C-alpha cells in the first residue's frame, strides 16, 4: 500500500507540479482529473479488491431501465 501511494503520488504530483510551474493550468487540471479517476481504480487494485467496472455499469443500466419501465 505504501509503495503504491509512493509511486503514485510521486508520479502524479511530479507531473502536476511541472505543468503548474509551466503555467499550463488547463493541462494540469486535465491530467489531475484523469489521475484522480485512476487513483480510485488503482486503490482497489492495491487493496487486492479491484472495483468492478462492469458491475457499476450493470447498476447504471438497471437503474435507467427501472426509471423507464412502466410502474
Amino acid at each position, binding site marked *: 500500500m505504501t509503495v503504491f501511494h509512493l509511486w503514485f503520488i510521486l508520479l502524479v504530483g511530479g507531473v502536476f507540479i511541472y505543468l503548474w510551474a509551466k503555467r499550463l493550468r*488547463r*493541462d*494540469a487540471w*486535465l491530467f489531475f482529473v484523469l489521475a484522480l479517476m*485512476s487513483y480510485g481504480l488503482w486503490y482497489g*487494485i492495491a487493496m487486492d479488491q*479491484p472495483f468492478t*467496472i462492469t458491475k457499476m455499469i450493470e447498476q447504471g443500466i438497471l437503474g435507467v431501465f427501472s426509471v423507464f419501465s412502466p410502474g
Partner: protein
Amino acid sequence: MEGNVTIRGSQFYFLTVNYILGTTLFVLIQSLVKSAGRDAWLIPLWGGLCGVVFALLWLLLYRLHPGKTLAQISLDVLGRPLGTVATVLYFLYFTTVAGFVLRNLSDFLTGTIMPETPGPVFHIMFLIVAGYAAAQGVETIARLSQLLTPFLVFPFWFVILLATVNWDWVRFVPAFQPETLAGIFRYQSILGYPFLETVALFMLFPFVGNRLGRMLTGGIATAAVSISLTVFAIIGSLGVERTVHLNFPIYSLVEEVAVNDVIINIHSVISIILLVLIFIKLQVLYFAAFETLRQTFKPRLRWPLLLGIMLLMAGAAPSIIENTIQNWEWSSKYNFVYNGFFGLAIPILLLAVTWIKAAAGKRRQRGGMTA
C-alpha cells in the same frame, strides 16, 4: 486537424479489419459455439450484416458533418456543455473497451503460457508501446497495420490449414436445425462485441479520403467473414463437443498441430498473431480516447494527457471484470445495451438533432423570406 487526409483507403480498410478482429479470435469463439453449436459460424455473418448497417448510420452522420470526428460533431451539434458530457462519456467508453482488451489479453497469456506474471505487467507494457505509437499519430497506426497485415494473414491461415488435417465433415451434420438457428439470432451480444465497438474508428474518419464508405463497410464485411471462417475451421477441426469445454479453442487447436511429428508446438505463432491484433486494436482505442479529450479540452501539451490516459487504462484493465464467469454473464446480458448506447443511441441522437436544427434553420430562412 480537420480534413487532413493522411490515410489511404486501403490502409483504413486493413485497420478496420484488424481492429474488429482484435480480441475476437480468442475470446468470442467459445461462447459462439456454446450458443449455436454446429451452425455457430453463421453468427458472425448476420452480426457483420448488422455491423454494415450501423456503419452506414455513422457514415450518414459523417456526411452531414464532413471532416469532423465524433467528438467535434458532438460539440457542434449539442453545444458546449452537453457536447462535453457526450465526449467525456465517449472517452470513458473507449477506456472501458481498452480495459476489456487488456484484460482479455492478460487472462489469455496468464492462462496459457505465463501463469506467474501479474496482469498489470502485461497491461502497462502493452500500453506503453501502444501509447507511443498512437502518440505518433494516425498515419503511424494505419501504416503499421498495413505493414503487419500480411504477417498476420498468411501465418494465421497457414496454421489453421495445417490444423485441418483433423477435419471431419460429420462434425457439421445435421446442419441448419431450427433450434440451433434460433440460437444464432438469440446471440445478440455479437452486435455489441465486436461490431458496435467499431464506432471508435469514427475518430479517424476525417483522415481518410473519399473512399471511406467503401473501405469501412468492406472492412467490416471482411472481418465478419474472417471470424466466420475461423469458427467454421474450428468446428470442423475440433468439433463442437470439445470446443464448448475449452477456454481458448483456437490455442488448443493450434497446440495439437503436428506436421510429421517434427514441426510441433507452433502455438506460439498464433499467440504472436493474436498479440499483434490486440496491439492494433489498443492503438486505435488509445488514439480515439486521446483525440476525444484533446478535441474537447484542447490542452497545450500532449504527453501529460497520454500519461493520464495510460494510468487510467492500466487501472481499468484489472478492474473491468471480476473473473471470466462474471464476464460471460455480464456480456450475455448487457453487452448489446452498453455498446448500443454509444454506437447507436448517441449517433442517432446526433443525427436527429442535426436534422431538427437543419429543419429549424430552413423554416427560419423561409419565415424570413416571406415576412
